[in-house]
């Protein structure tokens, strides 16, 4: 492995003198690579710049106010931020256990001939465009939730102290719970793929020693595989979270775009992405548009942090893998 790396870096590290074609080619390569950095940096700067009028006008109050009133030119980011966080939280609460179950099934339970086709089918979920999830959510899943799931949840969990508020409300179908569940389905393929891939990285010797000592399959996964892959599994969860936070179209269809603060998960709300998608082309004043761009900047910062943490945690397992070998 190390020989390979040395040879490769020597190729690129050859002095930049040489035929004109090579100098030009190298310049092209590095220019293209830098364009990736420019894309991220440029987006950060341009969106911050676009949102600056709103940050200036409202100050820190932008983040703490509930109001969103285009007529009175009064914009606060709290409701969209709350909606984004709550829907993403619902998504993770449902998607993480399900993804873990799928990864467990694909690495331990399923017979070998079944693993590839089922893995491929789950990955197809990631290929379905987000707007398709939105249409399915609005026309099929939301009515299903309203008719069959939400009344039951109210009856079951509504009377609980504290938590009951979350499940108390009219069963509209459209709202944070439905949006969160759809987000959950959308991120399952990403999280389960990471989990499955890192579970396979566990050295065969470790697995065999656990089984040889009499561990059951579940004990093997819970006490050996999961601790071994902990940081990478967490990294996969964070990557899923990053996607759930920024997902736009599916949420736009089923969230109802209501800038009202509600504790009930059944009530319509809005998220950062949905607010931008719904209102941007209709924003009729500069401050309105700047407020939406400012929301976009908040989303950009949140997802950047979450995704960067996820990448770093994934890289940690890869590194320890490398040092072991």
């Amino acid at each position, binding site marked *: 492995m190390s020989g390979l790396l040395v040879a*490769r870096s020597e*190729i*690129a590290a050859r002095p930049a003198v040489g035929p004109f074609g090579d100098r030009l080619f190298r310049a092209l390569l590095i220019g*293209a690579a830098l364009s990736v950095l420019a894309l991220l940096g440029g987006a950060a700067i341009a969106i911050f710049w*676009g949102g600056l009028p709103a940050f200036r006008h409202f100050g820190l109050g932008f983040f703490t106010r509930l109001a969103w009133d285009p007529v009175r030119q009064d914009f606060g980011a709290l409701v969209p931020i709350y909606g984004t966080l709550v829907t993403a939280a619902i998504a993770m609460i449902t998607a993480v256990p399900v993804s873990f179950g799928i990864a467990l099934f694909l690495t331990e339970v399923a017979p070998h001939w079944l693993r590839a086709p089922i893995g491929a089918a789950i990955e197809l979920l990631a290929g379905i465009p*987000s707007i398709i999830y939105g*249409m399915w959510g609005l026309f099929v899943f939301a009515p299903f939730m309203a008719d069959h799931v939400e009344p039951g949840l109210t009856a079951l969990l509504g009377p609980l102290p504290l938590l009951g508020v979350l499940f108390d409300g009219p069963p509209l179908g459209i709202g944070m719970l439905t949006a969160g569940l759809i987000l959950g389905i959308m991120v399952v393929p990403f999280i389960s793929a990471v989990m499955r891939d890192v579970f396979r990285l566990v050295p065969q010797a470790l697995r065999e020693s656990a089984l040889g000592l009499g561990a059951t399959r579940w004990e093997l996964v819970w006490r050996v595989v999961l601790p071994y892959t902990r940081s990478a599994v967490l990294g996969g969860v964070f990557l899923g979270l990053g996607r759930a936070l*920024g*997902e736009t179209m599916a949420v736009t269809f089923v969230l109802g775009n209501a800038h009202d603060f509600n504790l009930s998960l059944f009530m319509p709300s809005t998220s950062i992405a949905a607010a931008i998608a719904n209102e941007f082309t209709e924003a009729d004043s500069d401050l309105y548009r700047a407020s939406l761009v400012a929301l976009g900047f908040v989303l950009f910062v949140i997802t950047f942090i979450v995704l960067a943490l996820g990448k770093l945690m994934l890289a940690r397992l890869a590194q320890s893998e490398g040092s072991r070998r």
Partner: protein
Amino acid sequence: MTPNRGRLLRRQATNTLALSLATLATLVGLIALVWILATIVINGAAALGPHLFTRATPPPGAEGGVLNALLGSAMMTALALLIGAPIGILAGTYLAESGGRRWIAELVRFVNDILLSAPSIVIGLFVYEIIVQPSGHFSGLAGAIAMAMVLLPVVVRTTDETLRLVPVSLREAALALGAPLWRMVLFVLYPAARAGMLTGLLLGLARISGETAPLLFTALNNQYLSFDLTRPLANMPVVIFQFALSPYPAWQSLAWAGALLMTLFVLLLSLGARFMVRVRTR
């Protein structure tokens, strides 16, 4: 003896329960997949017909097709590929050939992986700020550039990964024969990694074909058949979005038909990419 036996039974019961729940979770995932696909196929098939491909999007209450949206999407996708693919391939080549040691390559790889999962609506805002706002109007060109930005990280990633699989001896053989770097890359590396790089392009194409958020306020939409890239341009995702949320049955049925076409196209591309990977590794 008895307590041990009880413990064993309990452990086995836990094991059975956990593995059953895992199977159940997989079933939930598969049911969601089938449920979504069935919805699209049933509603979409009912609305299919040759009129989709011969007529432009109708005004409310009239009959029509999605010809203008299909052509607009095709134009923007082609342009996005023309812009995004070469830059992506070159950047991926840089990453693979710098050996992963230089900090700049590490940084680019890190940033690229973040872009891969970054919210696409942010790309839409970015393009709005740098192109739509200064030029004063929405345009197909802005939409294509937004799509190219979504495509770029996919191509960078797959090119990087595929090129790193090409044996070092091949590179060394070419360089030892006196080939300059660019000839080595163009005539040795790329042909050797052809299948993988094509897979990356297919995956990228699948990704941008379904993206809606970056087009909402870049390309916007256009009710009429248009080939002018400097003006708002009709495209499938935005037409589906607007028609699905409209109160008119004719529009909604067009949205379902469009959704079916889009899903088929995207899934066929993903399956094609998967198939190519399998052929290559065999």
